[in-house]
C-alpha cells in the first residue's frame, strides 16, 4: 500500500509526460489524478492506523542482499503526520499550479517526481532506500526552480543544489562509516543497537565525526544558521507552488531526519552536543524573526518567517536532551510535549505556510506585486481574501485555537521547563513574529486604499476550494490537538526512552 502511495505520482508523471496529443493542459489532469489517488490511499491507511501499535503497513523485500540493503517501508508515529501532510499539500500544490501554461508537460511531471521523492523519503526505513529518495527529491526541485523560477533562478537553483549536496555527501560519508562498522542500514536496527548504549564503542573514535557529518547534512536541509543562506533565494525565486513544496515539505525532510536519523541513533552524541544544537537553533529562530522584520518583499518575509518556524521544531527536538536534575518521570512530563509539539509543529507549519504562500501567490497574480509598499486598504476590495489570509497569518503568529498555537505552546512548555533561558530568548522571536506579521496585515489590508487596486476580484471558486480545507485543518488542529497528538504519542515515548 505504501509503495502505491509513492509510485502513483510516478505513474502519473509518466502519464503526463508521455500522453500523446497536442492538448498539453491534460498534464494537469494527470497530476491531479495522481495526487488524489495517493491521498485516497493515505486516507484509507489513516482510517486503519492504530495508535497503539508502533510500526505499521510494513513492506519489506530483499533488495541488494550482498549489502544487506532492503526495500523497507512502513508508517509509524514519526512519519504518519508527514505522509498525511504530503498528501494534503500535494493537492494544494497541483491546484496552485492549475493555471500554469508554460510547458505543462515538463512542469507537472517534475512536480509529481518531486512528490514521489518526498513520499519515498518519508516512508523509507532503510538508510539506502531513504537516501535514494532524499537525493532524488533534490533534482526535480532544482529543475522546477531553474526552469520556472524568477529572474535570478539560475543562481538560486545552483546554490540550493550545491548546498544541499554538500550536506548529503557528508551525510552519506557518515552513514557509510556507520554501515561499515555495524553492517546494517536499517534505521530500526541501528536504533536498537543505539538503545543498548554500545554504539559509540562499536563505532570507535570516529563516532563524534559521524554524528557531525549526519548533523551537517540535516543542518543544511532544514536549514539552520549559518547554512541557511541558500534558502531565501531559493524560496523567493521559485514559482509559488514550488515554494509551497520547498517550505511546506522539503524543509520537513530535514526535521524528519533529526527525528529518524539523529535522535534514535545518536542519543549519546545528542546529549553531548545539546549546547551546539540549541545555540544554532536559537540563532536561527532569532535571525529568522529579525530578518523577516526588515523585509519589504512579502515573499522574503514569509521565507524568513518559515526559517524561524521550522527552527521551533528543532528547538522541541533538541531540548529533550538537555540534562536536568528532574527525576525521570517528571522529566518525561516535559520532554514528551516538546517532542510531540515538534512533530505537530511540522504538520501545522506545513499547513499554514502552504496557505500563506498560496494566498500571496494569488495576490501577486492579481497585482503583479508582492511589496508591502505597494498595497494598502485591500480589505475593502477583497474582504473574503483578507479574512482567509488573516486566519492563516494568525495561525502563524500562534493565536489560540489555531494550529500554530497548539504546537508552539507544547514546544515552549517543554522548552521552558528544560531550558528556560533558551525558551525565554525564543519568546522574543515569537513577539517579533507577531510584530512583523501584524504589520504586514496592517499595511496590506488596512489603511487607505491604493487606488490602483480598486478593481481587484475577490476569491475565485478554485481559491476557495484550495484554501478552505487548509483553514479547516488548521482550526481542527488548533481546537483539538489531542486528536493529532495521539498519533505520535507511542513513538515519542520510544524515542524518549533514551533521553
Amino acid at each position, binding site marked *: 500500500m505504501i509503495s502505491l502511495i509513492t509510485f502513483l505520482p510516478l505513474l502519473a508523471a509518466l502519464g503526463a509526460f508521455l500522453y500523446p496529443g497536442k492538448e498539453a493542459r491534460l498534464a494537469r489532469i494527470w497530476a491531479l489524478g495522481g495526487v488524489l489517488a495517493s491521498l485516497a490511499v493515505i486516507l484509507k491507511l489513516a482510517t486503519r492506523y492504530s495508535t497503539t501499535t508502533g510500526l505499521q503497513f510494513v513492506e519489506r523485500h530483499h533488495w541488494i542482499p550482498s549489502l544487506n540493503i532492503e526495500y523497507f517501508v512502513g508508517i509509524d508515529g514519526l512519519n504518519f503526520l508527514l505522509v498525511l501532510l504530503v498528501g494534503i499539500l500535494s493537492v494544494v500544490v497541483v491546484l496552485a499550479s492549475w493555471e500554469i501554461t508554460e510547458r505543462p508537460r515538463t512542469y507537472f511531471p517534475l512536480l509529481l517526481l518531486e512528490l514521489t521523492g518526498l513520499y519515498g523519503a518519508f516512508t523509507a526505513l532503510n538508510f539506502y532506500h531513504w537516501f535514494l529518495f532524499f537525493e532524488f527529491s533534490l533534482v526535480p526541485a532544482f529543475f522546477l526552480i531553474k526552469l520556472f523560477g524568477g529572474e535570478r533562478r539560475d543562481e538560486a537553483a545552483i546554490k540550493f543544489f*550545491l548546498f544541499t549536496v554538500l550536506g548529503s555527501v557528508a551525510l552519506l560519508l557518515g552513514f557509510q562509516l556507520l554501515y561499515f562498522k555495524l553492517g546494517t542500514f536499517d534505521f530500526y536496527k541501528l536504533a536498537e543497537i543505539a538503545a543498548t548504549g554500545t554504539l559509540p564503542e562499536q563505532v570507535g573514535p570516529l563516532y563524534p565525526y559521524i554524528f557531525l557529518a549526519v548533523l551537517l547534512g540535516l543542518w543544511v536541509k532544514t536549514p539552520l544558521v549559518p547554512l541557511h543562506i541558500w534558502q531565501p533565494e531559493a524560496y523567493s525565486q521559485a514559482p509559488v507552488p514550488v515554494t509551497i513544496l520547498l517550505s511546506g515539505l522539503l524543509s520537513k525532510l530535514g526535521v524528519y531526519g533529526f527525528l529518524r536519523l539523529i535522535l534514535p541513533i545518536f542519543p549519546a552524541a545528542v546529549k553531548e552536543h545539546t549546547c551546539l544544537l540549541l545555540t544554532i537553533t536559537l540563532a536561527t529562530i532569532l535571525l529568522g524573526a529579525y530578518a523577516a522584520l526588515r523585509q519589504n518583499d512579502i515573499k522574503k518575509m514569509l521565507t524568513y518567517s518559515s526559517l524561524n518556524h521550522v527552527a521551533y521544531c528543532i528547538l522541541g527536538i533538541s531540548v529533550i536532551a538537555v540534562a536536568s536534575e528532574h527525576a525521570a518521570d517528571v522529566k518525561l512530563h516535559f520532554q514528551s510535549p516538546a517532542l510531540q509539539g515538534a512533530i505537530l509543529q511540522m504538520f501545522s507549519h506545513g499547513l499554514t505556510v502552504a496557505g500563506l504562500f498560496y494566498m500571496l501567490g494569488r495576490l501577486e497574480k492579481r497585482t503583479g506585486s508582492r511589496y508591502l509598499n505597494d498595497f494598502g486598504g485591500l480589505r475593502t476590495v477583497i474582504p473574503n481574501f483578507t479574512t482567509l489570509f488573516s486566519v492563516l497569518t494568525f495561525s502563524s503568529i500562534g493565536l489560540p485555537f489555531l494550529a500554530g498555537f497548539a504546537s508552539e505552546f507544547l514546544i515552549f512548555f517543554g522548552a521552558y521547563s528544560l531550558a528556560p533561558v533558551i525558551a525565554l530568548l525564543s519568546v522574543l522571536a515569537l513577539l517579533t513574529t507577531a510584530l512583523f506579521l501584524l504589520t504586514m496585515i496592517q499595511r496590506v489590508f488596512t489603511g487607505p486604499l491604493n487606488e490602483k487596486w480598486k478593481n481587484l476580484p475577490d476569491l475565485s471558486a478554485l481559491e476557495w476550494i484550495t484554501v478552505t480545507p487548509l483553514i479547516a485543518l488548521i482550526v481542527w488542529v488548533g481546537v483539538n490537538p489531542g486528536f493529532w497528538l495521539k498519533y505520535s504519542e507511542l513513538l515519542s515515548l520510544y524515542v524518549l526512552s533514551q533521553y
Partner: protein
Amino acid sequence: MLPLLTVIISFLGALVVGLIPDKHLRATRWIALITASAGLATAITATLQYVLPQGGFQSVLAQAWIPSIGIQFKTGVDGISLTLLLLTGLIAVCGVLFSWDIDHRTNTFFAFFLALIGGVYGVFLSLDLVLLFVFYEIAIVPKYFLIAIWGSTRREYAAMKLVLYSFTSSALVLFGLIALYFGSDLHTFDITQLMTPNTYSETFQIVVFPVVFLGFAVLAGMWPFHTWAPTGHVAAPTAASMLLAGVVMKLGAYGCLRIAIGLLPIGATHWAPVIAWIAVINILYGALIALVQNDFKFVIGYSSVSHMGFVLLGLATLNATGLNGAVLQMFSHGVIGALLFAIVGGSIYRRTHTRQLAEFDRLIDRMPAIAWIFIVAGLASMGLPGFTGFIAELNVLVGAWQAQNSLHVGVLIVAGLGIIATFAYTLVKIHEAFFRRSPAADNPEHPAPSHYPRLTCPEIIALTLLIATTLGVGLFPGRLITLINTGLAPILIALSTGHVLP
C-alpha cells in the same frame, strides 16, 4: 568455449565488413549491428550459463600455443570478466547505432570498430598473461585509425598521443609480465596458476607491482598520465569515444585488478596508500578541470578521468567492498561515460555542429528531448542514488572507510570534495549548455534553428538501452554484485594470505 565466441564473432565480423565494397552502406551497417548484437547476446548467454555457486573460472579452454616459451591459449570467465563482457557488448551495440550516419569509408570504420571490440573481449577472457597482452595490443592499432581518420579536433595529434601512451604503458606491462614469469618457480604465464598464494617473494612483489600497476593504470587514466584520455576521447568519433571511455579505460583497470593486485597482493598492500592518494587526486583534479572547460566534449573527457579515480580508489582499498565498488564503477562509468559521449559528441554535435558551450543558446528550448536525456545522464554521472554510479561510489567509499588502517583519512575528505566538485561541474555545464542565453546565437547570418531535428531511431534505441541499464542496474544491483563477488573471492584470499606473510 561459449564466451570465446564473442572474440571470434567480432573478428569475423570485422573481416566480413572490411571485405564488403565501400558502396554497400546499408549492408555494412547491418552486418556490424548484427555482429555487435551477437556479441552482446553471447555475453548474456555466457553470464546466464555461469554457475554462480560454483564460482571461479568457468568455460575454461586451455590449448598449448607456444609451449617453448610457456605461452598457452587459455581463456575462461569469472564474475569480473563477465561483468565487463556484458559492458563491452552493450557499448558495442550502442556504438554501432551511434555510427549509423557514418558514410565516409564506412566499411573500414566498422572493421576497425569491430576489431577493437574483439581485442577488448579477448583481454577480458584471457587467462594467460601473454595472451591477455596480445589482445591488449591488438586493441591499440584500431584506436589510432578510428581517431585519425574519422575524428575531429586535432585528431592526428590526439590519435598519436593516445596510441603512444597506450603503447608505452603496455611496454611497462610487458616488462612486468616477463618479470612475473621468471619471478616465480612455476615458470608459467598461466594466471590461474600464478594466483596461488606465496608465488612471489615479498621483495619481488614490492619491486614489480608498481611497474605492472602503472602500466595498466595509464590506460585507466591515472593522474598524471591521464592526458591522453581527454584529448583522445574528444578527438575520437562518437562511437570510438563511447568505446574508449566506456570500455578501453576499463582494460587498464581490469589489468590492475586481475594482474597487479591479483598476482602481487603484498606489493598491492605496500603501495595502496600511494595509489589511494593518486586516485583522489584523479577524482578532484578531473572534476575541477572539467569545471573550467569550454568545449562540451572536453567536460565529458575530464569527467571520465574523475570517475576512473573512483575505480582506482576502490582498487586501493584492497577489501571486498572496495574492490566490488571498483568493478561496479567500471561497469557504471562504462555505461554512463558512453551515454554522455553519445549525447554530447553524437546527438548534440550532429545538430549544432559546434561543441563550444559559449555558442549554445538555451538548447532546452531547441532540443528538449536531448536536453532532458543529458540531464538524466548528468544525474547518473553525479552519482545520484538510483543510478549505477551511486551504488558503485557507495561501495568504494565504504571500502575506503574499512581500509582506514592503511589509508589516510585525508583521502576520504578529498574524495568527498571530489564528489562535490562533480556535482558542481555537472550542474554548471548543464546550465551553460542548455539554459544559458548565448550572445553568439544572435548572429543574424547563422540564426540557430528554433527546433533541431528530432532524435533518430538508432539514437533512441541506443540511448534507451544505456539509460535503462544504468537505471536498472542502479536500482537492482544485487545480481551484479553477487556476480562480481564470486570473481573477487580468489583475489581476496590472495590478499588475506598476503597479509600474514612475514
